[in-house]
């Protein structure tokens, strides 16, 4: 009983909610990008690499320039580079998407760890100026929900991006092309749609978003870089895309759920519950499996999913 009261006490609730929204931000960004790309028929397992390289480059840039915005920009650029490389491999060279994606992921994990060790040895420098959260006037003083309106700029952007992504996919010509390319690239080609260019653009779009998400993680959320700090968030984002069934609203809910799991790490400790740390850390991954179990049975993937396109 005491726990429940504590759970719903204002300070705890505010902290938990705030932490959840912050934690879910990279996932929302990554998932939005991946949804786009998967609608175009490409499975990007290198998403984890996009996030991680974004984290690393953002961190380095922020450390060097002491400017958070340059850091975010660097992160986005890193994501785009990964997107282009991956795109070149699977679109132009038509390498198997799973092999290329895994290769890129392993590469980025190794590369970022390598570079960090080379640059900083065994120390873990910290970015001195973290972006502070932007408080929305009036709303941020409301009880209980104050933390919703007291988030980083990037978090607000990520919320806005979901309806924007939906709008681009369903109300613009480009989005139509993407969906057509994902279902039936041969038909799209016959209609004069440039299949290759469409997929490249989708990957660039994903690169920007994922890079931003990774950057957020290393310079807004935390303030340093740790080896493989994304800890599977890229794959969780892919799982979320499978759950969301092409509806961006759902992306938000699942990302939020992940955020809750993540912020429970410190939340439960505050409550004084004696649950071993490790089980809480496991939660996000267990949650993904449970959700897939119930909601992702026999999902309908786009017709041309994961196959490269080649004109006769």
């Amino acid at each position, binding site marked *: 009983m005491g726990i429940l009261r504590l759970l719903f006490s204002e300070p705890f609730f505010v902290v938990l909610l705030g932490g959840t929204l912050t934690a879910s931000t990279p996932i929302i960004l990554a998932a939005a990008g991946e949804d786009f790309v998967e609608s175009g028929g490409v499975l990007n397992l290198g998403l984890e690499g996009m996030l991680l390289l974004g984290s690393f480059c953002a961190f380095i840039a922020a450390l060097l320039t002491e400017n958070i915005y340059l850091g975010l920009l660097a992160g986005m650029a890193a994501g785009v580079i990964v997107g282009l490389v991956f795109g070149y491999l699977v679109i132009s060279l038509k390498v198997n998407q799973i092999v290329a994606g895994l290769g890129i992921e392993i590469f980025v994990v190794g590369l970022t760890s390598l570079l960090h060790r080379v640059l900083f040895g065994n120390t873990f420098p910290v970015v001195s100026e973290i972006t502070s959260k932007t408080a929305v006037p009036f709303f941020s003083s409301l009880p209980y929900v104050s933390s919703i309106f007291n988030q980083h700029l990037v978090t607000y952007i990520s919320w806005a991006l979901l309806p924007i992504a939906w709008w681009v996919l369903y109300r613009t010509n480009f989005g139509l092309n993407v*969906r057509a390319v994902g279902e*039936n690239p*041969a038909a799209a080609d*016959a*209609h004069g*749609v440039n299949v290759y260019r469409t997929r490249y653009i989708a990957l660039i779009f994903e690169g920007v978003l994922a890079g931003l998400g990774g950057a957020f993680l290393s310079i807004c959320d935390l303030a340093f870089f740790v080896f493989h700090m994304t800890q599977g968030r890229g794959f969780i984002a892919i799982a979320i895309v499978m759950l969301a069934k092409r509806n961006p609203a759902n992306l938000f809910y699942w990302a939020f759920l992940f955020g809750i799991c993540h912020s429970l790490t410190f939340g439960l400790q505050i409550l004084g519950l004696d649950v071993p740390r490790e089980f809480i850390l496991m939660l996000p991954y267990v949650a993904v499996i449970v959700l897939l179990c119930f909601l992702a049975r026999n999902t309908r993937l786009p017709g041309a999913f994961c196959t490269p396109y080649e004109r*006769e």
Partner: protein
Amino acid sequence: MRQDSETAVGMRGIKKSFDGLSANNNIDFDLKRGEIHALLGENGAGKTTLMNILSGMYHPDEGEIFVKGKKVKIGSPHESLQLGIGMVYQHLTLVPTLTVLENILLGTNRKFLLPGKDAEGKVREISEKFGIEVDPKAEVWQLSAGEQERVEILKLFYRGSDVLILDEPTSVLTPVEVEGFFSVLKRMAEAGKSVIFITHKIEEAISVCRRVTVLRNGEKCGEVDLGDIDMGREALRLKERVVKMMFGETPPAKAVKQKPRKVSERTILTFDCVTAKNDRGVPALKDVSFSVIEGEVFGIAGVDGNGQKELAEVVSGQRKVDSGRIFLVDTDITNMPVRFNNDMGIFYVTDDRIEEGSVANFTVAENAIFRCYRDEPFARRKILLNMEQIKSYSEELIESYSIKAPGADTPVKTLSGGNIQKLVLAREFSQKAALLVCNKPTHGLDEMTVRYIRERIRRQSDRGVSVLLISSDLDELQEVCGRIGVLYRGEMIKILPGEGAAVGQIGRLMMGIID
């Protein structure tokens, strides 16, 4: 008839080969403005290849193309569309999950935003102008084949195509739809559009087209101008002329028809009110009932997509039925797995020889043992494969079925389509069968192989094996089958005795017309 002498499209000296085989050999072709021009020829004559060149899908090895008198190079379908040439392919190129409007708009817009109400208005305008009725908001997968074809045509008009190439457009239409389709074509021609009508059906070519160009074996054999001919008197002579062009001096002699002797009166296969769905969840078989006698070759006729594939799969064990029963003699084999049916003596020559009937990266030997790899002598104690036995068995099959393959170890992907089909046939036919299901076994093969396969079917029947022959080739059905059942929209609407069944009658039944 319009006497406009302006040429819409001209092709000179077109040559195209694939892997050393010539598909188009020095072909000249021209299309006048406002004309409906038929491109006539048997399967494999080169019609689709020639038109694919015009539509930008293929590049000619040699030759020139002229559009409205100007020489052009067409590098892609997109360029061809920009020149005003649009093609409706045999395999419709619509994206099923998008709406009609979205499919029409696909690739037309340079702008970022999708045009809203104006596009819909324009589409309705075009529909009315040419009498093409379709709902722009419907999702394409919900439409019938005929409606989908109309969407394809609408698409091309929306893009301002003046020249339309239609590849075998009537193959998916019912007779009523064909009538409506022809009247749409005539309205199009009157409005100044030019149409190239690819077909292998002489009757259609003659009834709606102004000129007919005949292709045979990749070459142009002749051109007939129907402009001022009085159709009544000259019709028969005209048809003969065209037939000569299509087939050479004498049409191929029809193989001597042998009536297979029935071994006994025992019923082998019984279908009792079988209902089943297809992969999309739509009912494909509705209350189908019939039976096949031992040693009989029972034909299933019908236009593609009327439930034939599902029928075959329900017998083979690859598909479940929703209701009804299937019996092999007295055993209930409804919904039994493939393995069980194989053990009972049911084998299936699939129509999809590339994706289903064989594995491209496997060797001939590995493909040959689909049905028997767990049995002695090919597997010792069901666990270890006996490589020598498998090899010698495959070599036997290669020998006795005249499969052109260097050896049992060659990967199947290097074999030609005809030889792959022979391999599939060899494999299924050499099992201990009670019933063989053959789905379009001679489709797309050359004359010799076709005869060979039909002979093999006859031999099986002579040996007392029943054959369920699914085919859209009426001549084949007539030649080989004892009885013929006609499938239309999933229902077995009539069963005819093979002897005395007129091709015309079967054809009408296939279109759903019950006399």
